[in-house]
Structures are given as structure tokens and as C-alpha cells.
């Protein structure tokens, strides 16, 4: 391995995902496209946690799902552990489904209410025929439940018997069942109570250390992302605006959107919070159906110049490992 380029588990180049807007009942024709993810490129190193943040509708969830191949990409290249997600063959896809997994936001709708905990957690084992023997399977489920801090006695219970935090643990156990290397965590804590969030984040971290997992952590809680993630990427309206090491991004945000986003986060300390300088963005996020020309952020940007409305800013590394897409950032 070259020391200059650490081991990359996931490589994304020029990824695009457009959803067609259709009209007509029998003959549906596309009358426009939602530019949910529009030309983003980044890598995820083995063993790290990459945070993906942005406001609702910025395309972060779509990006996560498209990377796993759950949505077919419109354009671009996705490599996970050397496998090309877009051109993978049947066997390769099955392998990918074992090695790259997902944890969902809503612990209520992501577990089948009519299945027992045992069937939910063992589903990946059955689908991928990893453990054919029933007894072994149950032993493995028990082990997985204990790994995520639940008692092995819960095997035959149903999801409704658990609290939100416990359900999220069940979802994590299911994701771990097939010994994955890469997990996309899609807002795994935002539906949970404040006092439970830290429990789940600590669990994710323990599991990462134990099994050498790589996470893509999609979230809008910027404080938790700073705590958990080694690097952080910021999305706005389908595009990536900045990507840097966690503390670097939070201490020296370069893109005006990142600056505004970070300054908007309230700090749980009244003396500090009331001293903080805030950039209040005016207006609202424009529609991804017809995104603004040039830089997508120019309609709300406090420092936008004439050329920002025309030219799409280049995605460039302005400092070592600090990427930004903005005309006004020097370097």
C-alpha cells in the first residue's frame, strides 16, 4: 500500500442520480428531472467514519442509497472493495449485499412488525445461505443480539415490544449479521430521544473498533457528526460543497454554506451560544428540479459575485485533504 494514498474502501466519481418527474397515466413521459445527486466525487478510507451532512432534500440519503446500488445511478462510477457497483454481475452483487449494508433512520418502519426478532436478524443469514443449520443460526442471532447490548432472551419477541433505541439495536444486529465491511448509517439516531442517542453512537463506535468497520454516517446533527466522524462532507442541493477532516472543517470552514450551516447550530451553553457570530441565511433552498445556474448556492450566498451565477465552481483540493467547490475560496 502506498503511504500517500491510504487504503480506499469506497470510491465515488462523478455520481449522478436523477429521478424523472412523469406525467400521464398509461403512457408516462418524463417532463423533468429531480437532480437529487448531481456529480459528486469522494472516497472513503477503510476503517474511517465519513460524515455526510446537509439539510433535508440535499440528496444525502439518495447518495447513500445509490452508492449501495439500492437506486440505479444515472451516471458516474462507484467502487466498493474493488467491485464496480454499477456493472457487477449477479454473484458480485450478492457478495456486495453481504459486505455493504445499511442502517435506517426509522426504527419503526424498518423492521417488519410481524416478524420475530430472530427472523429479522437472521434474514441476511438465510438470504445469503451463510448458516444453513437452524441451531447455528439461532446461536448466531443470540450472539449478535448480545453484541448490540440486547439480551439473547428476546429472540421470539416482536418489534412492538421494544423501545425506539432497542429497535435501532435490532436493526444494527441485522446489519452485522453477514459480517459486513461497510455500513451506510442513514440518520440512525435522529428518531431517538436525546438520552438514547449517545448510547447508539457509542455502540456504533465500539462495533467499528471491534470489527474494523467503515461507516458512511449520514446525519443532520452537526455536533454528533463532529464527535463521531474522522472526515466530513457537506452537501447542498445535490452537490458536494466541501469535504475535509472533521476538526479542520469545523474550525476552518471555507465554503460560505458550510460557514452559515455551522453558525446556525445552537450550542448547549448559553454564555457561549449568545456570543457566537451567526450568519442567518435568507430565503429557502431552491427546487432540485430546476437548480440555479452556475453555483447552486448563489441565490442565498452572502458573497456571491457575477460569475457565480454563470460558472459551475470546480471541485478542487485547496489545501491538503480539504476539498471545496467555490469560486471565492483562494488556493
Amino acid at each position, binding site marked *: 500500500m502506498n503511504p500517500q494514498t491510504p487504503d480506499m474502501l469506497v470510491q465515488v466519481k462523478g455520481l449522478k442520480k436523477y429521478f424523472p418527474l412523469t406525467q400521464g397515466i398509461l403512457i408516462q413521459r418524463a417532463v423533468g428531472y429531480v437532480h437529487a445527486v448531481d456529480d459528486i466525487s469522494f472516497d472513503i478510507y477503510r476503517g474511517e467514519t465519513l460524515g455526510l451532512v446537509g439539510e433535508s432534500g440535499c440528496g444525502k440519503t439518495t447518495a447513500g442509497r445509490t452508492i449501495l446500488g439500492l437506486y440505479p445511478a444515472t451516471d458516474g462510477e462507484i467502487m466498493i472493495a474493488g467491485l464496480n457497483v454499477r456493472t457487477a454481475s449477479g454473484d458480485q452483487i450478492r457478495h456486495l449485499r453481504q459486505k455493504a449494508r445499511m442502517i435506517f433512520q426509522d426504527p419503526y418502519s424498518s423492521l417488519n412488525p410481524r416478524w420475530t426478532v430472530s427472523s429479522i436478524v437472521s434474514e441476511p443469514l438465510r438470504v445469503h445461505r451463510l448458516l444453513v443449520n437452524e441451531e447455528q443460526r439461532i446461536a448466531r442471532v443470540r450472539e449478535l443480539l448480545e453484541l448490540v447490548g440486547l439480551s439473547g432472551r428476546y429472540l421470539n419477541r416482536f418489534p412492538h415490544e421494544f423501545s425506539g433505541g432497542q429497535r435501532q439495536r435490532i436493526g444494527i444486529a441485522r446489519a452485522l449479521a453477514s459480517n459486513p465491511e461497510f455500513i451506510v448509517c442513514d440518520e440512525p439516531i435522529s428518531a431517538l430521544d*436525546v*438520552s438514547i442517542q*449517545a448510547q447508539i453512537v457509542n455502540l456504533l463506535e465500539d462495533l467499528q473498533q471491534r470489527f474494523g468497520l467503515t461507516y458512511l454516517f449520514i446525519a443532520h446533527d452537526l455536533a454528533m457528526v*463532529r464527535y463521531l466522524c474522522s472526515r466530513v462532507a457537506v452537501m447542498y442541493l445535490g452537490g458536494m460543497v466541501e469535504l475535509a477532516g472533521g476538526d479542520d472543517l469545523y474550525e476552518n470552514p471555507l465554503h460560505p454554506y458550510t460557514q452559515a450551516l455551522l453558525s446556525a447550530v445552537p450550542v448547549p451553553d448559553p454564555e457561549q451560544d449568545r456570543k457566537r457570530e451567526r450568519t*442567518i441565511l435568507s430565503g*429557502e433552498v431552491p427546487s432540485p428540479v430546476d437548480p440555479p445556474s452556475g453555483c447552486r448556492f448563489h441565490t442565498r450566498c452572502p458573497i456571491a459575485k457575477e460569475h457565480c451565477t454563470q460558472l459551475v465552481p470546480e471541485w478542487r483540493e485547496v489545501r491538503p485533504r480539504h476539498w471545496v467547490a467555490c469560486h471565492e475560496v483562494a488556493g
Partner: protein
Amino acid sequence: MGRLLEVTDLQVCFNTPEGVVHAVNGISYYLDEGETLAIVGESGCGKSVSVMSILGLIPTPPGEILSGQAHFHEQDLLQLSERELERIRGAEIAMIFQDPMTSLNPVLTIGLQITESLMLHLHMDAEQADQHAAELLELTGFSQAAKRLGDYPHQFSGGMRQRAMIAMALGCSPSLLIADEPTTALDVTIQAQIVELALKLRDQLGMAIIWITHDLGVVARMADRVLVMYAGFIMEEASVFDLYKDPRHPYSLMLLSSLPRVDQRRSGKLRPIPGSPPSMLTESKGCPFAPRCSYVIETCRVTNPPLQEVAPGRRVACWVDVGKGE
């Protein structure tokens, strides 16, 4: 400043098929004119019910107000008839809610919904009401406000709907604005807009605010005084600066220290509160937080501590004082 609202010994339960949910268990709180009070707690802790019940805004049945008084301008809100309450709601006391989509009527224009209360409470005619409605929308940050009156809620984004709700709430110059998780469904940059707007309007119009939330960051930004609730009880009451600097209830302390900070580098692991909030179906004998508390002593499991004044303006319900003690 004068006292605006004084609630004493409020007890509310819900009779459900699973049993009696003890939502609010005999709490007392007050609010001064022009003051911003935050009620903070996790889902199901009774923070909304403790305010909505005094305005007659919980369905009865299944809800039942077992005891309590709520004095607002010399009258006990809990003794008023529905008609008398209607005269106060939307006029002297205005409300905004978490989900602006479900609290706006989708088939009526924004203009109609704002002018309704103006014509009802202030007896304006249609033309005056329209003009005032446009002023209100302008006040809450809409450009070309007069044109917006003909729009329907679905034409607005989440943040715009919440600002329209605020415009509607301000229509009759209320002395009290009750905001129930108004920014929870919104993105952080829009949340900052709404909080900023509420603070500006509070200062301009001199109204008091009760802000119900689970977000300790928003509380730090805007509150004067805070009630921390857990399982239908007030655990701690303090000025916002005292609470964050020196939390004196273990729940406040543990909650605050479980939060990561956006403005600080990581130092060690998060310290979560173990366990999960209790079921409200069973009345616990001791302190409801005892099973999760790191400072628990034997007494806690047997007797529920009363909310007692420990310093001027500071009340804590705990047998152990975890404060730094200055």
C-alpha cells in the same frame, strides 16, 4: 414585572385501553410578563400536556385534568367554559405547533386563515383584516406580502409555513405565545431564522413565550428560565445561565454531559444516560429517574423527592445535591 401565568398543582392523566397514563403529576410553574420560559424534556415527559391542558387543548376523554389551577389575568383557565376559553385562545394567548402543515388548513388561502382571527377577535372588516394580514406577513419576513395572501399552504416551504403560523399567532397582539416544538421539523438554518424571528418579535411586541422543546441548544440560545421535565414531573427549575453552568439535578447534569458540542474538539467518549425513559402507565413509588441515575441512594427508590427551592428562583427535586455548590 408582573406575573402573567401561575399554574399550581396541575395533574393530568389519559385513560387508555392499556391503563392510566400519568402524563403530568401535580406540577406548579409560573411565567412573568415578557419572559421566555423553556420547558425541556424527552418525548412523553409531559412537557406539551403541562401547557396544552390549561388551554383546553387536550381531548377529554381520554384526557382528564385531575386537579390544578391556572391563573391568567385574574381568572382560572381551568374553570372557564369552552366559549370563554375560545375568546382567550388566539387572542391573548397564541400558539404555534411543531408541524405547520397539519396545523394549517390546506384548502384555505393563507390570507383567509390569518384574517379569520382578526375578524373574529378584533372585529375588523375584510379590507382592514387583509391589510393587517399583509403587515403581519411582512413582519415575519415575507417579501411581497400582499401577494402571498392568496397562496395556499402547499405553495410554502416548511420554514415559510412556520413563519405564516407565527404571523397568524401574532394577529391579535397576544401577551403570551406558546410554541410547541416549533423548530423540530425544520432544518438548522431555517430553525435559526425562526428562533431569531421569535426573539425579535418578543422584544418588539413585549410578549412572553413558553417554548416547549427537547433541544437543549435552542433553549440555551433563547430562554430566560428553564423547566426540566421527566416522566411528568419537574426535575429542576433554574435560570438558563445557572442551569447550564451548574445543573443541580442528576437528570439535567447527565443530559447535558451526554451531548456532543459542535464548537469543541472531541474529548473522550460520550457519557450516555443508561436505560430508557419509564413507562407512564405505572406510578413509581420513588423518584422516576432513580433506575437510570448515577447518583442514586436508597431513599430515592422509596420516596419521590418533592420539588424544593434550593436557591432563589431555583427548584430541584432530588434527595442528592449534585451541584458544584458555590
